[in-house]
Each structure stands twice: as structure tokens, then as C-alpha cells.
């Protein structure tokens, strides 16, 4: 079964793909051997996803050739891709949450009972569970085939996805940002799983934004930019600097600049904030011109704290003061009125109405001020939108473009523009640069500097430690709903933050 001779599983030659107005891929060449882990890196919009979607049959290529096991193929649809042995694991899992692990693994291919049950189409549950067990063992997972998927952790669900790929005898497994939602330990488990796939001769394409991981897991790094394959490096010979430079055409230090602003009076004070099971006794202050970073693992309660502040969830207990005055915030509407603004972590689901245009999204929080007796003054709206589109350099062909068609970075800038118009005193940002390209990131950092300079207090939640360390004046670390440390910019380090975030405290460092 184990074939140590490396064979070329996949070869992509001169593949191009264009969408209206965008050349998403041009003349891409790529190959993958059996038992190899290749990392595909690039900014958002570089074409990674388009390439993967072509391989998995979601898109059709405009031109070029694809060879699987040496034979040229036209991948018609996702089902066809699966038949060819290509499986893709997206960030959002394709699992039915209310069914068992085994049912998910055999979804669509359930074994039918022998004997009389055959005539009724009864599922052979036992066989399905036994086979699932075997597959789970192949990746040394301890998940029971009988557990309900919805009750598993994110990491476990991911394992189920991987096992699903094994069940269809995939030879090529593509993983799109598999670590984005995982904690540190879970990432290690995932890597073990990936390595065991590798030993079984499966070729793996791993897409990630986290370069440290890329270096840990891969043998080869392929860099894409602007729809082209910029080059590839052997991991053993590559450096982070080199990879980033290939990704952006610039080097790391070019895009994260903190310009310290003058820090003045306290604008926001939070006392004894509580929400059962989520947030415990949170106290902090935020000063004008200050950037307060909030670090912590996903699920630690970081987002819950700011959701309480903004009135999205209701607090059990606690007081919020702004400029010395006690606030009574019951809904986001109240929060907006007192000068709070909130850039949520998920643009598509919480930040934007994708079906509406750039203008319509930009004015969403401030509409009332551009109307009299309910009648919208369209000239004013157009003027203010133009102003902010150019101030944030939002790249859109025209103001009435639906935000759906903008890139991630430009979408995020639309969300920011929406709040900048409201002229907030406190800006809360949850993962402000997640999933956007480095160019847009640097523009957002510059904007944060500018806002701080103008006296806005900024609260920034981020999972990216370099970002937290680079931009914050103070860093608040959250662990299980409690503040485990407040670190000053000068004393903070990745190691220190991680040890507080995982609840180990300072002793361990």
C-alpha cells in the first residue's frame, strides 16, 4: 500500500481564469507529488482560492491543462473532482451538525443493509460505524463515530472533514486555512494528522496566512501574487522575510508603523463587567489617543467583553462610564448615540449588507443625519461617500458597486468608513485585519494612528500577536473571561502574552 516512489499526483499547466474586470489567474503552473505537503501562500486576492476552486470543480478554468496521475482531465464539478481523488476542506465545514460522525463521513454514500432491509433502503449503521472507526484510527483520532458532530470541538470537526476525504480515497487533499480557528495545541494535533496522511502517500496542499505554521509543516512553499505564481522555495532554504517579500514585493518592516499619539484623559471606564459563563469581573480604562490591545485565545471571552460594551449582549452586572458619565447601553443603537463604534470580527455576516452598495453601507450608522423628516438627502450622501471613499482609498469602480464584489480589504475599509462618519470617541475593532491583504492592513494601521492622534480611544482585539504588539499602547490579556494581565507596550512580548493567555501566569516565563 505504501508507495515510497514519489509520483506526480497533480500537474497544472498554464491555467488562466478571469472574472468580469479581474484577471484572477494568469498562466499558473503548479505540481504536487504523492506524500508531499506544499504550502500555498499569498495575500488575499492573490488567486489561491481561485486556483483551489478550479481544482475542486467549483470554477472552470478559461485555459490551460490539468493532469491528475499523468492523465489530462477537465474537472466538471465538485463531484467529479472527488471522483478524481481531489478533496477540499474549506474553512466553513460541510458537516451536518445534528448527525453522527459516521453519518457525516458516509454522507451521500451510506451503506445499505443486506437482507430484507435492502428493499427499504435501510442504512447499515453498524457497518458505517465500524468503517468510520477504522478511518478515524488511520489518523489516530479518538473521536467516537457515534458522537453528534454539533457537540464536537472545532478541531474535532475538522478531523471529521479530513476523515471524510479519506473515506472517498482522496489522493489530493486541499486545506484552506485549516488553522484559522484552532488553538495552539489543536494546531499540533492537526499537524500530526496531516503528517499521517502524508505517510500514506497523500499529497497535501495547505493554504495559510500564518507563516510560522507554513514553515513548520511544509516541504515546499509556493508563493502567489496578483493571480500569478511568483515562485517556489524549499522550506529548508526559505526565510520568513524572503517569503513575505515575495508575497508583497516589499519587506516586513514596511507595513507596521506605530506612531505614538498623545494620550490624554480617560474616555471610557469599565467597572466590574459580568456576564454569566462568559465574562468575569472585567475592569479597565481607555484613554483618549490610546490603542488598547486585547489578546487572548479564541473563545477566551475577548469578543464577549466588547459585545457587552456595545450593547449587543446584555450584561448581568457592571457599569460603564464615558467622560465621567454613567452610560445606560441596552442596544447598539444606544451605543452609537453616545459615540461608540464597533467593527465586528466577521465582515460578511456582521459588518456589511453585501447586497447593498458601497454608499448604502457607508451611511448605515449615520443615515439620520443625512435626512430631514425622513427624506434622504442623496446629494449629501454622495458627497460624504465620495469623501470617505477617497480618504480611505477604497478601491471600487463606482460608488454604487455592491460591496459583495469588493475585495476583503476594501470591504473592511467600507466598514471603517461607516464608523468614521459617525465621528466616534471610542472605536472598538474586533480582528480588524483578519483575512485582508498586507497592503490594506498597512492602510488600516495608518488610519488607526491617525484616529489616535485625533484623540479617539481605540480598543483592538486581535489574534495576531505581531499586530497587537506593534500597534497597542497597552495590552490586556484575557483568559477564560477574566483579565489575566495588563501589559505595557514596553514590557510585552509574544511569550509573555501567550503564557497569560493560556492561564499560566508569569512564573512559567
Amino acid at each position, binding site marked *: 500500500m505504501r508507495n515510497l516512489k514519489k509520483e506526480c499526483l497533480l500537474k497544472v499547466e498554464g491555467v488562466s481564469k478571469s472574472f468580469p474586470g479581474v484577471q484572477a489567474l494568469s498562466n499558473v503552473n503548479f505540481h504536487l507529488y504523492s506524500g508531499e505537503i506544499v504550502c500555498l501562500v499569498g495575500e488575499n486576492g492573490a488567486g489561491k482560492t481561485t486556483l483551489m476552486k478550479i481544482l475542486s470543480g467549483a470554477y472552470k478554468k478559461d485555459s490551460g491543462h490539468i493532469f491528475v496521475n499523468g492523465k489530462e482531465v477537465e474537472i466538471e464539478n465538485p463531484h467529479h473532482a472527488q471522483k478524481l481523488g481531489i478533496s477540499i476542506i474549506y474553512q466553513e465545514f460541510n458537516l451536518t451538525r445534528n448527525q453522527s460522525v459516521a453519518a457525516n463521513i458516509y454522507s451521500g454514500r451510506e451503506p445499505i443493509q443486506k437482507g430484507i432491509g435492502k428493499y427499504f433502503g435501510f442504512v447499515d449503521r453498524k457497518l458505517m460505524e465500524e468503517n468510520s472507526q477504522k478511518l478515524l484510527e488511520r489518523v489516530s483520532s479518538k473521536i467516537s463515530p457515534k458522537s453528534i458532530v454539533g457537540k464536537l470541538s472545532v478541531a474535532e470537526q475538522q478531523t471529521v472533514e479530513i476523515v471524510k476525504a479519506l473515506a472517498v480515497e482522496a489522493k489530493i487533499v486541499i486545506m484552506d486555512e485549516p488553522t484559522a480557528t484552532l488553538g495552539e495545541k489543536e494546531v499540533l494535533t492537526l499537524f500530526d494528522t496531516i503528517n499521517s496522511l502524508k505517510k500514506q502517500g497523500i499529497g497535501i496542499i495547505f493554504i495559510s496566512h500564518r507563516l510560522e505554521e507554513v514553515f513548520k509543516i511544509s516541504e515546499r512553499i509556493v508563493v502567489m501574487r496578483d493571480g500569478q505564481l511568483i515562485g517556489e522555495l524549499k522550506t529548508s532554504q526559505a526565510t520568513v522575510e524572503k517569503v513575505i517579500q515575495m508575497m508583497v514585493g516589499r519587506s516586513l518592516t514596511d507595513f507596521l508603523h506605530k506612531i505614538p499619539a498623545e494620550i490624554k484623559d480617560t474616555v471610557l471606564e469599565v467597572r466590574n463587567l459580568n456576564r454569566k459563563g462568559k465574562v468575569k469581573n472585567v475592569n479597565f480604562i481607555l484613554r483618549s489617543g490610546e490603542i488598547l490591545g486585547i489578546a487572548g485565545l479564541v473563545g477566551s471571552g475577548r469578543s464577549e467583553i466588547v459585545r457587552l460594551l456595545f450593547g449587543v449582549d446584555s450584561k448581568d452586572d457592571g457599569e460603564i462610564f464615558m467622560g465621567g458619565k454613567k452610560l445606560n447601553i441596552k442596544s447598539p443603537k444606544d451605543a452609537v448615540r453616545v459615540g461608540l463604534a464597533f467593527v465586528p470580527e466577521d465582515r460578511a455576516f456582521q459588518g456589511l449588507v453585501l447586497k447593498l452598495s458601497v454608499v448604502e453601507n457607508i451611511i*448605515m450608522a449615520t443615515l439620520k443625519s443625512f435626512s430631514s423628516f425622513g427624506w*434622504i438627502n*442623496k446629494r449629501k450622501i454622495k458627497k460624504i461617500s465620495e469623501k470617505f471613499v477617497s480618504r480611505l482609498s477604497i478601491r471600487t469602480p463606482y*460608488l454604487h458597486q455592491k460591496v459583495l464584489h469588493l475585495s476583503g480589504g476594501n470591504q473592511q475599509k467600507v466598514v471603517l468608513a461607516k464608523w468614521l462618519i459617525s465621528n466616534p470617541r471610542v472605536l472598538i475593532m474586533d480582528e480588524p485585519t483578519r483575512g485582508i491583504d498586507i497592503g490594506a492592513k498597512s492602510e488600516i494601521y495608518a488610519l488607526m494612528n491617525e484616529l489616535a492622534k485625533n484623540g479617539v480611544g481605540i480598543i483592538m482585539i486581535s489574534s495576531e500577536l505581531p499586530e497587537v504588539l506593534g500597534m497597542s499602547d497597552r495590552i490586556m490579556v484575557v483568559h477564560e473571561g477574566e483579565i489575566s494581565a495588563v501589559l505595557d507596550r514596553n514590557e510585552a512580548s509574544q511569550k509573555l502574552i501567550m503564557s497569560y493567555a493560556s492561564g499560566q501566569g508569569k512564573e512559567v516565563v
Partner: protein
Amino acid sequence: MKEIITKNTERNFKSISSFKEILKGQLAGITLILIIMFVLLSLLTSTFLTSTNIFNILRAFSWIAISAYGECLVVITGGIDLSVGSVMAFSGLITAMIMNAGITVPVAVLAGVISGSLIGFFNGILVTKAKLPPFIATLGSLLIFRGLCSGLTGGWPVRDFPKVFSYLGQYDIPLFGIGIPVPLIFVVFLGIAMFFFLTHTIWGYRIFAVGGNETAAYLSGINTDRTKIMAYVICSTLTAIGGILMTSRLGVASPTAASGYELDVIAAAVVGGTSLAGGEGNILGVFIGAAIMQILRTGLVLVGVTAYWLQAIQGLIIIIAITLDQLRKKRI
């Protein structure tokens, strides 16, 4: 590139209803269907293109169209209102009963309209505060208010209205030598009012925002519950106006009046391009959608299709219209 940007930013702020954009897309399709139907029926029958027939069509479609404007709002918020048929009957009945109790016509009409608004408020509260799925909430209302109609009358129709009342549905205003039916005037004026409401006011804007992405709208400080309640109130209020016009036209308030009209109303809204997924819709489209449904009904009878086949063909047309629209969207 720079030239393109400056040129395009000069476009005015146009909402979903930008005339040019609509003509390019969905509206063009249904307008074409309308014209084809019109031409075919004019050629095939000698009776179709007569002013009597045309005004009959316009009169008969007016309450459906008025109610469909409101339905459009509810559907844009991502909901649905199944109770419109019952609201038409109920509001007509309330008006009729008050008139027959000897109270003046304007007061009776106003009471009928307000009864509609209250039903809308009830629906809105059920959807937003009790968090019922709109389908269930308004299905309940459909039954409740239909039941109240029979209960209040013991199943007997109410008739013999004051003469003034019959003007609403039966009088033709002479204009340029032709008589314009009063209900048609309501259709046009309410249509224009709703068009501007949806495209030029903050309330209309909020309806689109809530329907497009409720979470994002809420997090931007929009009172999403209030917006939805407003949509249901407007829907039922418009429907009540339609119901009163219908009652006046028929000269009788029957407890079984307008049974099944909810499907015609929803069909008109959907054929007119209102997306059941929420966030999309326009009033002009709804107007044309309602016209198509009515011409179909009248036209088929004129070409000699017996009434028994009508529903099957209507259903087919709805499916074809929506399928074409889906294909158009996919192409883009």
C-alpha cells in the same frame, strides 16, 4: 483607470430602484412579458383592447396591486405576510358593519383602515418580540381574522351600504373624455408614494438594510424590530385600503371575500422581482407583476380557456417567470 473612477463616481446616488439598472435586468423581462401578453391578446380577441375591458382589468387588479406593494415591503425585510386575504375581508367587514350601524362613512372607512394597521402591528409583534417565523405568525393571523369574519356575521354577508360609499369602488372620474376608475387612482398614488418611501426615505432604506443582513443592520444601530413591525403595519394598512375598495366595488362585505388572495398578492410581488430571500424588490416591478397576473386571468377567459384551467396556467406562469429570473441572475 482614473478616468473610469471619476466618471463613475459622478453617477447619482441611486438605490435599488435605479431606473436604468432595473430596465437592464429584471424589470425589462417582466415588462416584455406584459407587452407580449398585451399584443397577443389584442390580436387574438376583438374584446381585449376595448376601454371597458381595460378598465375592468385595472379595477379588478387594484386591490391586489395595493396589497402587493405592502407585501413587497414585508418580503424585502425577509418575511412574508400570509394574512392579507383575511385582512382585506376583515377591514371591509368592519367598515361595512360600522356604516350599517348608522355611523358616517368617513369614520367607518377610517376604522376599517385602522383595523388593518392593528393587525399589522399584531403580526409585527409576533415576528419580532415573540420571535415566531413570519410564515407561522401570519398563518395564524390568516385563520384568526378569517374566523372573526364568519364569527361576527354568523356567516352572512353584510350589504346595503350608503350610496356615498359605493363611489369609492364604482365611480369613474371623467378625465380627458374617459372615465378613470377611482381604485385605479389609489393604485397609482399609493404606488408613487410607496416608490418614494422605499427609495428616498430612511425607513425604506432600513427595510433594505434589515432584509439584506439583519445582524449588520442591528450592529450599525438600526432598530431592526421597529423596522420590521413598520413593514407589517404598512402592509396590512395598504391591504385594508384595498379591502375597503373591493367591498365598495362589490357592494357587499362577505366573510369569505378575498379567500386565497394572499397567493395572488405574493405572486404579484414575486413575479415583480421581490426576492423571497429578502433585501431585494421594487414597487414598479410589483405593479407590473400584479398587472401580469390580472391580464392573464382576464385574457385567458377571453381567448376561451374555461375557468377550470385558469389556476394551473397561473401557476405555470409564476414558475416560468421566476425561473427566467434565476437564469438571468446566474448569468450575471
